[in-house]
């Protein structure tokens, strides 16, 4: 005899499961195992993983590292922000703080970089427009992500973690230049005047 869920069943409710109910449980279980397997599989085969090189960093040290990075590779300015063009294969430092991403970075299509993200104050969110690549930026932690830009263009870094009253003002820029010879022409929107040293 069946009961509803508000009637107390007899003491021993450990009864044999119907065949169809059992089949569904096994199908669901198998699907859950697929869900599980996909993650390690993507680590081995897939190109997009949030692993990164991770370690603690003192915000002041990170800020100093960013300043040094700008000093070494600055090629211009854009809207008052330094524009930096590091060589392929190098480490790139992007600093989040209320309410700016510093500096503007110029990369080359198809080259590999290690993008270091950290914050000087509160949590921020790295959100690459229009690609929809998102990472959490936490003060005190350096998140070093290997990236290979696969298409040229202008990309923007929005902040998608609430970081205070000016949160929505926080937009940075990443420029990717085409892999062919045109690379040295300044990308649209970047004034090199006065910035070249």
């Amino acid at each position, binding site marked *: 005899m069946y009961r*509803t869920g508000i009637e107390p069943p007899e003491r021993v409710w*450990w009864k044999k499961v119907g065949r169809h*109910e059992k089949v*569904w449980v096994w199908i669901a279980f198998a699907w859950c195992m697929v869900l599980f397997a996909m993650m390690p599989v993507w680590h081995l085969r897939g190109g997009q993983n*949030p692993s990164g090189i*991770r370690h603690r960093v003192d915000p002041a040290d990170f800020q100093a590292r960013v300043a040094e990075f700008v000093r070494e590779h600055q090629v211009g300015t854009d809207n008052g922000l330094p524009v930096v063009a590091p060589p392929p294969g190098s480490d790139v430092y992007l600093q989040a703080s209320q309410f700016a991403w510093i500096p503007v970075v110029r990369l080359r299509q198809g080259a590999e970089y290690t993008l270091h993200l950290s914050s000087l104050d509160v949590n921020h969110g790295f*959100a690459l427009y229009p690609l929809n690549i998102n990472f959490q930026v936490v003060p*005190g932690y350096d998140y070093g992500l290997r990236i290979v830009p696969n298409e040229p263009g202008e990309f923007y870094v*929005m902040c998608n973690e*609430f970081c205070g009253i000016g949160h929505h003002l926080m937009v940075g820029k990443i420029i990717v230049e085409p892999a062919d010879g045109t690379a040295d022409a300044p990308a649209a929107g970047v004034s090199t005047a006065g910035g070249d040293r």
Partner: protein
Amino acid sequence: MSAFRTCPTTGLQVHRTADRLIKANAVVATVALLVGGIAAVLVLLTRWEAVLLLEADMFYRMLTVHGMNMLIFFIIFFEMAVLYFASAVLLNCRVPAPKTGWVAFVLMVVGTLMVEWTMWTGRADVLFTSYVPLRAHPLFYLGVILFAVGALTVVGHFFAIITVARKEKAYEGSLPLVTYGALTAAAIAAVTLLHGAIIYIPTFLWSLDLMHVDAQVYRLIWWGLGHSSQQINVAAMVSIWYLLGALTVGAVVLNEKVSRTAFVLYVLFISMASAHHLLVDPGMGPSWKVWNTSYFMYMAVLASMIHGFTVPAGTELGMRLRGAVQGLFGWLKRAPWGDPGFSSLAFSIVVFGFVGGITGVTFGTEQINIIAHNTLRIPGHFHATVVSGTAMAFMGITYYVIPLIFRREIAFYPLARIQPYIFAIGMLIFSMAMTFAGTFGVPRRHWDIGFTQALFQPEFTPAVNLIIGVMAVGGLIAITGGAIYIVMTVVSVFFGRKMAADDSGLGATGRGLPPGITNPPRALKPEDMEALPPSGRLGPVPGTMVLVLIFLAAFILYYFVNWMLLSFLWEVG
């Protein structure tokens, strides 16, 4: 006056203290819903760029007010009422420590008021996650602590009621499934509130400059609280699914072992699930992320997939046993769609599963999280779970709580019949549009995606404006449904027609009572089993079998489409 009254509808002995505690908690929950709902209108009309109602500071403040009042105060006060109902009322038992019950209630209210004060006066513009080192007034954290201590006391009280019921033999046999489900919710709540204490006490001290709190450690432990509390909501919601099924159509439990094991899975594997909020965080490595989200979380997913089968299956079988045997879906045709309890149940299951569940599991995948984290996909997902699922179920059960516990008829009953449709359809449009906008990378918690005052002006494709417009319209429809609910419950509770102590409402017509009370599903007889035609290839519940297979297909499709979208991106790692 005796300490107990006899419920004329169910025959249960109801302790009057339980009645009062349920009423008090439910009333405060509704007030929180109202406050959160007002904030919802303001936030919604600001995110709709075409209106951009609030200034930036007020937007973030109202978003904090919305998150706290809805997710914390409304939901948890309601759950306290559910705990008393599922223990004292369903088990015919007294409330052993009435004073403790009231002290806990007062603690929670005082904590709530402290938090409200800091939020409304602009001393806590930190959103409900209050990520350190964003700083709020110390009373904000203290308020949360008091609230949590009060809730923890209610959880302890719930365990005490069950123990007393067992000792005093208030019921025969084992705990009913609904109470069992509430028990698992309470067990998870105990773990959750412990995390809450571990994180909010140091944070309170930090706000007084007495100690240091690491930003990443905060996120880790905070989500131990934040996510497991969602599992309380799920366990409570599923318990209410079984309850509403029983009240509206006499849904049966196919197999107690399966349903109960699924509840236990929630308890065992959920505290690990906080990991899926930290998938793209710098503090943890890939093996920690994969292990904690996948293996453990998917066992909780399994549990939900089991309930997603057993609840509709129990409904189907309950109805087939009462004669609705035609075809695959004859039972759905015969179902009481005009009963707001039933329609809420149906929408809650469908939207929770198809929208909330599928998106949640997909976004909670380590790598796919890269294209979901902190975009509008996330609030899109949880407005389909905790709102369309949990809040919808809570609204549905209200249509029974008002007559059974408050002993009042439902005011504006014809409106009550359509309220679930308005709310569910609005929420469905809203949450799907929000999720869709998020696939374009539109950030959550953002005042101005036009970036009018920012250094650079990225421009989303015009499609995004359209989608946000659809989202706003859906949201306004949902708010209409929510407003009807609030007006109706308040008027019913304070001014509704009273029901006499012996008035069961049975057979009544034209009164503000749902069909599950006026015309309850008849009791099952042994002959009903024999009258059931032999089952075909798809088993005793063929309709449900087809529905869950459609669900699985949708799940697989959405999941792999997301992997495909991910694979187009830059290589990153």
